[in-house]
C-alpha cells in the first residue's frame, strides 16, 4: 500500500512540476482517498505529515492545496467529517465514505492502466524478428 502511495506521490510531484493542473488535482485527491482508505480517519495536518513521511520528504502537500481538496471531496460525499475535542481544542477528522471507497478502486485501476500504457509507450519492446 505504502508503495502505491509513494508511487502516486512521485507521479503527482512530476505533474505539479509540469504544471498539468487537472491531472495534479486528480492525483492529489487519489492520494488523500487512498490514504484515508488505508489509515482510517485522519485530520488535515496529519495527512500532510503522513504523505511527507511516505515519500521521504520528496512530496509535500501544501496547506493551500490540501484543504480545498478535502472540502471538495467532502462536498462530493467521498469523505465524511467528525469534530472531536482533542486536548483543549476541537479537531476535524476526515474518513472515507462507501462512495469514496468505490471511487478509490476506480481511480487506482485507471492510474495503473495509465502507468502501464506510459511504460509501454516510453519503453517499447523492439521486435527484431
Amino acid at each position, binding site marked *: 500500500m505504502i508503495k502505491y502511495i509513494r508511487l502516486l506521490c512521485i507521479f503527482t510531484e512530476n505533474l505539479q512540476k509540469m504544471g498539468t493542473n487537472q491531472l495534479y488535482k486528480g492525483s492529489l485527491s487519489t492520494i488523500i482517498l487512498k490514504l484515508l482508505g488505508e489509515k482510517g480517519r485522519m485530520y488535515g*495536518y496529519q495527512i500532510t505529515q503522513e504523505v511527507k513521511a511516505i515519500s521521504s520528504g520528496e512530496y509535500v502537500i501544501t*496547506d493551500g492545496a490540501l484543504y480545498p481538496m478535502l472540502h471538495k471531496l467532502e462536498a462530493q460525499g467521498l469523505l465524511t467529517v467528525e469534530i472531536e475535542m482533542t486536548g*483543549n481544542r476541537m479537531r476535524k477528522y476526515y474518513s472515507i465514505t462507501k462512495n469514496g471507497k468505490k471511487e478509490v478502486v476506480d481511480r487506482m485501476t485507471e492510474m495503473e492502466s495509465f502507468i502501464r500504457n506510459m511504460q509501454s509507450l516510453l519503453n517499447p519492446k523492439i521486435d527484431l524478428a
Partner: protein
Amino acid sequence: MSKKLTEIQLIELFAFCRKHHVYHYDVQVELVDHLASIIENRWEFEPDLPFWLILNQIYKEFGNYSFSGIKASKEKALRKKYNQLLWRYIVDFIRLPKIILTIAIILTLFSTFRLSPSYKPIFFSFGGLYALTMLVSFGNLFQNKFRLNLISKNSFLFSDHLNAIKNKVFILGIIPIFLSSLYNIVLSEFQLSLSYNVVIQFLAALLMTVLCIVFFAICFYIPKRIKEDFTREFPQFVKS
C-alpha cells in the same frame, strides 16, 4: 513532554483567523487546529521559539491567497452540506401521515368551495387568519423560534442558514397577495367564475393548503431541526 498551546494562545489563534477575514467559527475550527498543530510540531524541535514568531512564519508560508482560498473552499463545502441538511429536513417532513392529512385538507377545502354558494367568505377568513399569523410571525413569538441560545458571541455559518430562512418568511406573506391579484386578472380576462370552474376551485384549495404547510414547515419544523443538529454538532456553545 512536548510543549502545548495554552487556552489564551488558542483564543489568539481564533482572533488571528478573524483578523484575516475568517469570521465563522465552523470555518475557523479547522484552521486553528492546523495552525496549532504546526506550532506544536515546531516546538518539539525548538521549544523556545515565541508563539507569534512561528505564527507569522506560518502565515507567510501560507500566503494570503492560500488563506482566503481555504476559507472560500470551506465555506462552499459547508454551504453545500447545510443545504443538503435542509433538503433532508424537507424529505423527513413529507411523510405518510402528513401526506394523508394534506390530501384530506385539500379535499375538504375543495368540497367547501363546491358546496358553498359564495367563495368570498372562505377567501376572506383564510386571508384574515393568514395575515394575522404572518403579523405574529414577525413578533417575538416566532423570532424566538429562529434564535439559537448561544453562550458565546461566536458567529456560525450554520446559524446564518437559520437566519437566511427567517429572512425568507416575508415571501410567504407576499405569495397570497400575488396569487389573489393573479386570480383577479385571470377572472376578469377570461370571465371565469370560481363557483362554476372545478379546476380553479381545486387549484385554490391546493394552493391554500400548500401555503399553510410550507408556512408551518418554515416557521416551526425546520428551525427545530436546525437547532437539534446545531446542538449535536456544537454542544459546548448552546445554553442548556
